[in-house]
């Protein structure tokens, strides 16, 4: 795992975070639920909590789908390539490429379209950035920078958990295991960890 330069994090008086969706996207409840699940991955292992609110302007974390140049100097590039990006604490901005073929539910590995991308997998990764994690060299980790289309990877790896708990500590209710469905994890070559 790694952190952003200067190790920015949400301060101790801002651990109960709110999030909201760009109203112009008109996202369905089903899409929003994907993010709820993604936030839960991180709240399970830390004392952080995440609550969806309607007020986009006052939310700690804002989530929006954009295409091409969307004003932050990091234009999206159409199908595949760059899928999303997010800012370090305490910016709270999470942007996803609206041109992707986002799969909201179902077994993305069986998608007939080669460009299908699992939304929750990308959401869990980008939330890691929002909380202060940089990229990881551990291929099994959520914070590994790349993900192949038609792949699902939503469970935090030990590497992710160690990193985020260094920033925020441990959820007192965390029992040391986040993997409820081992079939959801990508297979790993089992690189040694030091």
């Amino acid at each position, binding site marked *: 795992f*790694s*952190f*952003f*330069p200067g190790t920015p994090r949400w301060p101790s008086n801002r651990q109960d975070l709110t999030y909201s969706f760009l109203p112009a996207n008109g*996202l*369905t409840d*089903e*899409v929003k639920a994907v993010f709820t699940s993604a936030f839960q991955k991180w709240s399970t292992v830390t004392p952080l909590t995440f609550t969806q609110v309607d007020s986009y302007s006052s939310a700690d974390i804002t989530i929006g789908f954009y295409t091409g140049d969307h004003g932050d100097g*990091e234009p*999206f*590039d*159409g*199908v*595949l*390539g*760059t*899928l*999303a*990006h*997010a800012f370090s604490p305490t910016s709270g901005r999470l942007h996803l490429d*609206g*041109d*992707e*073929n*986002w*799969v*909201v*539910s*179902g*077994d*993305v590995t*069986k*998608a*007939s*379209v*080669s*460009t*299908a*991308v699992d*939304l929750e997998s*990308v959401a869990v*990764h*980008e939330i890691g*950035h929002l909380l202060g994690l*940089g*990229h*990881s*060299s551990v*291929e099994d980790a959520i914070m590994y*920078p*790349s*993900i*192949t*289309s038609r792949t699902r990877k939503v469970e935090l790896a030990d590497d992710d958990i160690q990193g985020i708990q260094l920033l925020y500590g441990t959820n007192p209710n965390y029992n040391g295991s986040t993997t409820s469905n081992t079939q959801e994890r990508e297979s790993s070559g089992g*690189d*040694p*960890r*030091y």
Partner: protein
Amino acid sequence: RFFPNITDIPPWIKNNATSKAPWDAFNKFAGCRPGEKREGLSQLKQYFNHFGYIPNSPSNFSEDFDDELEKALKSYQQNFKLNVTGQLDDQTLQQIVRPRCGNADVINGTSSMNSGRSSSFHTTGHLHTTAH
């Protein structure tokens, strides 16, 4: 575009799925070596610049496989646990063209992505570690 289920993906999306992803063009550089000049290498340098492996952003990158690109490649290969060859081998290109997060791997010239290991770790192994 959102698909509540994979079965909802319409036929026209499937028919257009053969369109090239933005970085597929980099595959033509397979086997390209330091010292060569290839049209389009400037775009590969822009890729590495975007993800932090080439720190400066000149108005125009050259089409030369120069020391700067070789150094960027080695750093990239180290971060992704590839063989550190400094060349555009197949394994490296396969990784480069994969879809990914737009955030940089190297920020302000510093990469902690691979535990900050220097390339000397891979060549000499002079790093004491404790397994846990």
